[in-house]
């Protein structure tokens, strides 16, 4: 029989290289025998592959070659002792190392904490892998937009027509409710859900039955927090909270049928009160309309159901039932939604995951920079330890034992840095929470997290110790004692390369953060097309809705209040939209989407928007109730010169009376969208008050007086538009600040390393400097001589960083509809700043050397 092809010889060589000789024969024998079987079973190719895999699996401690160390514990004790002696003898060097590593580790731990927290969102549901969020792509004018708002029918149909769907829940969250028990009222956030909500999501009940809790139309479920607020701390022992009734929004009594545990912070679904969706549907007949899309819908699929296959089946659900052609329904795993929720042109392009990725990269970069410091300093100081190494080798130390010695030293450093870092993390946790708006506690620093970061620290120790260990232990003992200061050019080049790399990273981080900061600042200060300062809004409840005109007149009489209007939504957040718009000359297949804002009189004036043409709605014209205002973007679509042209919205015909200058709605990530402003005071659910500049306190007092008089049963709560705006872009602002901090730290660690390197180099060249000075060199000349090598490296690092940064920043800025350009001047300024800082670091040491009295350095020889 022909001998089958041989196993890969390199796999054998690998085995021979690490496997202990007394085991090698049986290991290779067994593998060879198995190889014969594999060839028959799977063919030669697979067999060779398996051979390699199994050969590699022998990389186990028991199989390794043994190094004859007589007493490993004694040797280890000795290494530790030497390591600590070195630390004590070279305090500044040890300080630079430990400080650099600790700072790097602190940043890394914080980032890890943050990332762990971010990735923990929505992961606590029992059947998390089965829960999906339902989305809808909608194609308008060739553009695909993606929404999670759906008509109520989607859930009903999914449950009936698709066997894969176990449960589907239509929900409407972020609703404000006024809860009244007895004579006390509270404003709480909550939502409407179907009774099967609790079969999909795991919000454990403290009291009540999850199966029946929301079955009745007048039932409500509250959280423990709400129960405490309404019924006192002892609500649980009172035992009569279940069955109590609550009045909601002063319109209906609801019976409490369940109390659930407080919603975890890392849940995207947040509520204090839950009411049955059916109750909402009965009050709003429009919900029967397929285009009344307000429900965020979740579906629980069967275990093991293929999402891909299901998405194919479900895609036409909407079109099939409505005859539309432009909708596509699809599901996304619920656990992914928090981090991945930004769709562009029908493609999932990211979301918060971007920040997770950016900061994970920053953590790795910072650790790398700190490791490089360690490597550079260790190898630079090699000549000082060359004699020690030589002597150890001559006495009979193996290279392996020297490697373990240097590894022990770097491990010791890493461990010290770890302890320092953990202490700092504990101490700075509250500050970190303030900065990021998270609620991390010491409990989050649990043992598994601490073990994880200990692991990271040890890896850092191994990485930063590996090169010095290999490099130092390979010294030839014969050559060592003679040439103490000559270092191999390979090592020098590597060190230079690492410095370049460090500074390239630092410059990259700094320029990126400067650009991020500018972008975020641009957003925060950009002209929105309306004045967001001195503007506040509150819900139009009770008398504010029924006696709007009286309340308005009354408010205007009070000091501090400049103007009052009503609007359907905060113009800086989401509005409703529709394709049901008709105008002269509209193409028959045009399905342009328009945003709709329902307002009352005085809207333009109160918002301080600017009119490009025409006029605001006016009480003077009795006919204005059917008329419209449009923004410039809408005017562009409707055709130029739209004033007085007829326009039909929701089938109601009216006239365009004015064009307002474009203002930013909704999000700075998306471009300005065409908007129609309707005069419909009934549908305008928010009361807007413009206060006199600088008299906000007075205005608030007036507002409260009037409010209490007209609406005694409602808690007085209001929101300032500018604060709301800040809140919306808070995560961007936090990211900006964090990025700035980390970039500063990166530069600091790099400079720390540079400082160590120069001080060491200067020390080595003390005699050279002395001789030069004696021969007449100037101080400036010597400083230049000593500094220029390092500055060259920093400069190269800078040059390398430019194109990478340019590319990365443009990639990030593409997310924003309103963005700055990355200007070359930023690069220049950052470059100059980095070089100046590096120069300051380097010249501190070189100046000291240059100014020293040459006699001191030349005296002893």
């Amino acid at each position: 029989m022909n001998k089958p092809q041989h196993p890969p010889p390199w796999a054998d060589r690998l085995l021979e290289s690490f496997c202990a000789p007394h085991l090698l024969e049986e290991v290779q024998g067994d593998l060879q025998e198995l190889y014969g079987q594999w060839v028959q079973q799977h063919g030669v190719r697979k067999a060779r592959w398996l051979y390699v895999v199994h050969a590699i699996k022998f990389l186990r401690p028991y199989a390794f070659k043994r190094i004859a160390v007589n007493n490993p514990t004694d040797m280890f004790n000795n290494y530790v002792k030497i390591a600590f002696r070195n630390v004590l003898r070279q305090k500044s060097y040890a300080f630079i190392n430990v400080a650099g590593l600790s700072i790097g580790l602190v940043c890394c731990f914080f980032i890890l904490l943050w990332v762990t927290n971010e990735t923990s969102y929505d992961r606590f549901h029992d059947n998390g892998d089965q829960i999906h969020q339902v989305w809808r792509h909608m194609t308008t004018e060739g553009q695909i937009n993606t929404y999670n708002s759906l008509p109520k029918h989607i859930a009903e149909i999914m449950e009936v027509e698709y066997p894969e769907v176990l449960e589907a829940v239509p929900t409407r969250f972020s609703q404000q409710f006024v809860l009244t028990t007895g004579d006390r009222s509270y404003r709480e956030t909550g939502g409407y859900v179907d009774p099967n909500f609790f079969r999909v999501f795991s919000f454990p009940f403290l009291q009540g039955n999850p199966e029946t809790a929301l079955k009745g139309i007048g039932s409500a479920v509250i959280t423990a927090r709400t129960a405490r607020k309404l019924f006192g701390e002892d609500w649980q022992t009172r035992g009569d909270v279940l069955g109590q009734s609550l009045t909601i929004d002063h319109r209906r009594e609801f019976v409490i049928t369940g109390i659930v545990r407080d919603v975890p912070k890392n849940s995207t679904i947040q509520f204090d009160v839950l009411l049955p969706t059916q109750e909402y549907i009965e009050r709003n007949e429009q919900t029967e309309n397929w285009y009344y899309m307000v429900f965020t819908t979740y579906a629980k699929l069967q275990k093991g159901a293929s999402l891909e296959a299901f998405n194919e089946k479900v895609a036409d659900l909407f079109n099939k039932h409505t005859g539309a052609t432009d909708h596509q329904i699809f599901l996304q795993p619920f656990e992914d939604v928090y981090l991945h929720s930004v769709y562009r042109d029908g493609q999932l392009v990211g979301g918060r995951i971007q920040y997770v990725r950016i900061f994970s990269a920053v953590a790795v970069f910072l650790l790398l920079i700190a490791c490089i410091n360690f490597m550079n300093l260790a190898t630079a100081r090699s000549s000082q330890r060359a004699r020690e190494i030589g002597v150890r080798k001559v006495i009979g130390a193996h290279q392996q034992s020297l490697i373990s010695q240097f590894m022990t030293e770097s491990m010791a450093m890493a461990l010290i840095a770890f302890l320092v870092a953990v202490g700092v993390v504990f101490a700075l946790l509250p500050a970190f929470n303030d900065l990021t708006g998270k609620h991390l506690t010491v409990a989050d620093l649990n043992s598994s997290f601490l073990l994880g970061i200990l692991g990271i620290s040890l890896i850092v120790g191994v990485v930063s110790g590996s090169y010095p260990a290999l490099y130092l232990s390979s010294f030839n003992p014969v050559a060592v004692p003679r040439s103490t200061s000559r270092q191999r050019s390979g090592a020098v080049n590597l060190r230079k390369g690492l410095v370049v790399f460090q500074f390239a990273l630092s410059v990259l981080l700094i320029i990126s953060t400067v650009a991020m900061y500018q972008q975020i600042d641009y957003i925060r200060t950009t002209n929105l097309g309306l004045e967001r300062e001195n503007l506040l809004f509150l819900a139009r409840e009770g008398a504010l809705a029924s006696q709007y005109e009286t309340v308005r007149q009354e408010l205007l009489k009070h000091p501090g209040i400049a103007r009052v209007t009503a609007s359907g939504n905060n113009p800086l957040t989401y509005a409703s939209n529709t394709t049901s718009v008709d105008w002269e000359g509209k193409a028959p297949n045009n399905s342009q989407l328009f945003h709709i804002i329902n307002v009352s009189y005085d809207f333009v004036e109160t918002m301080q928007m600017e009119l490009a043409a025409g006029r605001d709605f006016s009480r003077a014209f009795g006919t204005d109730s059917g008329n419209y205002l449009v923004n410039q973007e809408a005017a562009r679509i409707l055709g130029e010169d739209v004033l007085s042209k007829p326009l039909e919205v929701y089938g109601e015909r009216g006239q365009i009376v004015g064009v307002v200058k474009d203002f930013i709605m909704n999000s700075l990530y998306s471009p300005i969208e065409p908007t129609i402003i309707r005069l419909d005071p009934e549908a305008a659910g928010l009361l807007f008050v413009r206060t006199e500049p600088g008299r906000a306190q007075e205005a608030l007092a007036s507002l409260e007086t009037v409010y209490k008089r007209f609406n005694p049963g409602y808690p007085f709560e209001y929101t300032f538009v500018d604060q709301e705006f800040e809140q919306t872009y808070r995560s961007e602002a936090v990211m900006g600040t964090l990025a700035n901090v980390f970039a500063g730290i990166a530069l600091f660690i790099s400079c720390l390393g540079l400082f160590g390197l120069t001080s060491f180099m200067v020390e080595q060249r003390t005699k050279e400097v002395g001789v030069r000075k004696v021969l007449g060199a100037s101080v400036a000349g010597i400083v230049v001589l000593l500094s220029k090598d390092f500055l060259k490296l920093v400069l190269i690092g800078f040059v390398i960083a430019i194109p990478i940064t340019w590319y990365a920043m443009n990639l990030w800025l593409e997310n924003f509809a309103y963005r700055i350009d990355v200007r070359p001047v930023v690069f220049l300024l950052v470059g100059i700043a980095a070089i100046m800082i590096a120069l300051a670091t380097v010249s501190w040491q070189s100046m000291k050397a240059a100014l020293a009295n040459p006699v001191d350095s030349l005296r002893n020889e």
Partner: protein
Amino acid sequence: MRKTYLGEFEEVVLLTVALRFEQAYGVAIQEAIQEQTGRSISISAVHATLHRLQDKGFVNSFMGGATAERGGRRKRFFTVTPAGSRALHEIKEQREQIWQQIPAKALQWKVL
């Protein structure tokens, strides 16, 4: 002195060494475990366990003759030492002792 501990997988390997009496070497043991328990184990795991058992004194080993299918390499055969044998018996007795005391009702479901 405390007895040397025998892990679950170690026990299986030790039993298999006994099962393949006088024919127990790496590949044979791996095959036997696969046959008896249905577990598929990599050869390196078998080797690691065998050598751990040897360190603990539960098996002895000697090199056999060269064979062609192993490229002329010899096999290392393993045999159970008296200590290994005692350990296995002890485990078995302990288990049986416990089994006898378990009320039948407590464990009424069996593998079919």
